[in-house]
């Protein structure tokens, strides 16, 4: 899907900008964050980077043009997109970037820039065999990789050598053995973020008496829904249907029933008071290489499943690339955190002040479980089970509240009967 490149705002009361130089031309391949053009104004010269990787298909504002802030100055399309001529170019036929379609099979084509287009079947086969899709030439329209391309690549000797290099995204790569002697010999001062986190953690534990309750939820129903509707969902909404949106939706549903879990304690002239929040602003803790951050989905009670899925994916990506805006961080009323990402069963998290509770999501496991049918007969079946641990502030939330909240949360997930659209 093409991305608009817009004129950024250089200052609070600046409403337009002048492009002084294009560093790329229509048809050029661009990397994310590569400099596209420069703006000059008021003794400021700023390089403006590309928001995504792809092909610069169209330049709408040439050098010297003055455009309004937020106006679209260029468009970046996926690899293989048709390129429009520049506004002041000679009237010639538009350049067409040739799709990657090699003649002979065992040829390792250059990895296409931007998203790799492939059929779901091709992706599945590639994944099963551990192939790197970016190394497989596609013979379909726009360089799309189909089943035949993957199977052909499977027999190519070059591909076989490339296979072991493909990173398994799901597993964390094993850390290399450290040479202890090479560690810093002097104490390393804390970075700003680390110091902030340290301070906040101590503060939170000091402020709230933390109590934990752990629930095991049968996620089999959700797992099946994902399998059944995942592909269509992805097609329709452009984002994967993971377990997270279901979990978020269930949390929101339970919070609506038990608003005390969404509340916070405040100091008023009369003493401590409970502030019930008008909205459910869901914080989603994201682990970064350099620390952690909690972007927020505001007014999650109004979000559909699709909108939750999109927000979660988008916020995580932008959190990792440091592209969150200030109003996307802070102001959460309840936080979700992933304690199972590295294989743990469940975690006991620290509350994200000034909230009163936090929900840690454990690892998803296939386990044998006892199922009782309508007649009362017990059988053992294989089910997808997941632990969830609610940490809460016992000053305002008692065990009973916490338990009822978790029961409601569990029920939503185990009996999911909403349409997936």
């Amino acid at each position: 899907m093409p991305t608009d490149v817009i004129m950024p705002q250089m200052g609070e009361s600046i409403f337009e900008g002048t492009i002084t130089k294009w560093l790329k031309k229509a048809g050029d391949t661009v990397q994310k964050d590569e400099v596209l053009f420069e703006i000059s104004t008021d003794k400021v010269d700023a390089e403006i980077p590309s928001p995504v990787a792809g092909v610069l298909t169209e330049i709408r504002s040439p050098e010297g043009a003055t455009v309004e802030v937020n106006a679209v100055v260029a468009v970046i399309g996926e690899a293989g997109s048709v390129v429009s001529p520049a506004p002041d170019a000679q009237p010639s036929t538009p350049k067409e970037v040739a799709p990657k379609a090699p003649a002979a099979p065992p040829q390792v084509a250059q990895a296409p820039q931007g998203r790799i287009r492939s059929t779901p079947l091709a992706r599945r086969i590639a994944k099963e065999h551990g192939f790197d899709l970016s190394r497989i030439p596609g013979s379909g329209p726009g360089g799309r990789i189909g089943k035949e391309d993957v199977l052909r690549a499977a027999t190519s000797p070059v591909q076989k050598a490339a296979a072991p290099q493909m990173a398994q995204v799901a597993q964390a790569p094993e850390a290399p053995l450290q040479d202890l002697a090479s560690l810093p010999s002097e104490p390393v001062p804390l970075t700003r973020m680390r110091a902030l986190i340290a301070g906040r953690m101590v503060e939170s534990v000091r402020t709230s008496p933390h109590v934990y309750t752990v629930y095991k939820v049968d996620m089999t129903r959700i797992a099946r829904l994902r399998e059944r509707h995942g592909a269509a969902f992805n097609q329709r909404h452009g984002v994967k249907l993971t377990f997270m949106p279901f979990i978020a939706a269930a949390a929101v549903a339970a919070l609506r029933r038990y608003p005390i879990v969404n509340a916070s304690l405040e100091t008023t002239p009369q003493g401590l008071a409970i502030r019930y929040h008008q909205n459910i602003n869901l914080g989603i803790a994201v682990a970064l290489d350099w620390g952690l951050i909690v972007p927020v989905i505001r007014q999650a009670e109004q979000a559909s499943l699709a909108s939750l899925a999109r927000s979660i994916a988008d916020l995580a990506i932008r959190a990792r690339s440091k592209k969150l805006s200030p109003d996307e961080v802070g102001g959460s009323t309840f936080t979700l955190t992933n304690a199972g990402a590295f294989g743990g069963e469940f975690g006991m998290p620290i509350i994200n002040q000034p909230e009163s509770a936090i929900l840690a999501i454990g690892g998803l496991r296939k386990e044998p479980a006892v199922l009782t049918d309508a007649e009362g007969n017990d059988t053992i079946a294989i089910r997808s089970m997941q632990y969830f641990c609610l940490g809460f502030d016992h000053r305002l939330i008692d065990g009973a509240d916490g338990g009822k909240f978790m029961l409601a949360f569990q029920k939503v997930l185990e009996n999911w009967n909403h349409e997936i659209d």
Partner: protein
Amino acid sequence: MIEYLYLGRVDYSEALRLQEELVALRSEGRIGNVLLLLEHPPVLTLGRNASRANILASDELLKSRGVTLHEINRGGDVTYHGPGQLIGYPIFDLRSLRSSSGNRLGPVDFVRLMEQALIGLCGEFGVPAGQIPKLTGVWCSEDGRVDGGEPSIQSCRPANGAEGAVSPAAGGKIAAIGIHVARGVTSHGFAFNVTTDLADFALINPCGITGCPVTSLEREVANPEALPSLESIAHQAALHFGQVFDEPVRALKDLAALRAQAQSAVGELITDR
């Protein structure tokens, strides 16, 4: 947090290299916001919008006065740097800063704040200074009067004499500003005239404005002999930056200390929010 370092006299090209190094480190988050304070040997710099016609002196004259020429990628036209002029290069990540209204700081907002810091610095010496809309930089008025923060210069009128020299306390531009932004990080910055030999400005049309009067702190204070050293003024400038950007200010011991910081921050990121 703003860390700053006074480097003394540094060659222009060396300062450019240092800025590049620090911009890269800042964009990786391996150092925080750093303000470099220094002095240059005589040099003329041509910014992106520069025109050679704005250099009034011939190449021979420049050479005979020991003035070198540099073309650079910052905004603005041509300007002069030399001894007695305090140079400040803030290497700040704009995303780590917030305006007083809590919004993101754009590059132009950043320039306005820099002007404020320098206006505050002038104030320390009892010199009223201000901004002129559409004319980036810090200006002192002709008669020392400042109405509502703006000096009473209506336009840059030609100064007296063929040399373009400025009469005492005639007002004019006391600080020039030009910045570059790459990867959200600023470089280049300001040039604040303390005891700069203003005759050297006759070599150019500063900022491409014909006959633009230039002034210095020495020219504007009642008691120029009492002016402290450039280094001392550099420290005061850093404090004003801290005030205007609402950040604590810390003096760095030396470049080695800054580089050591970058080393120890390997893999970790400082995000000031």
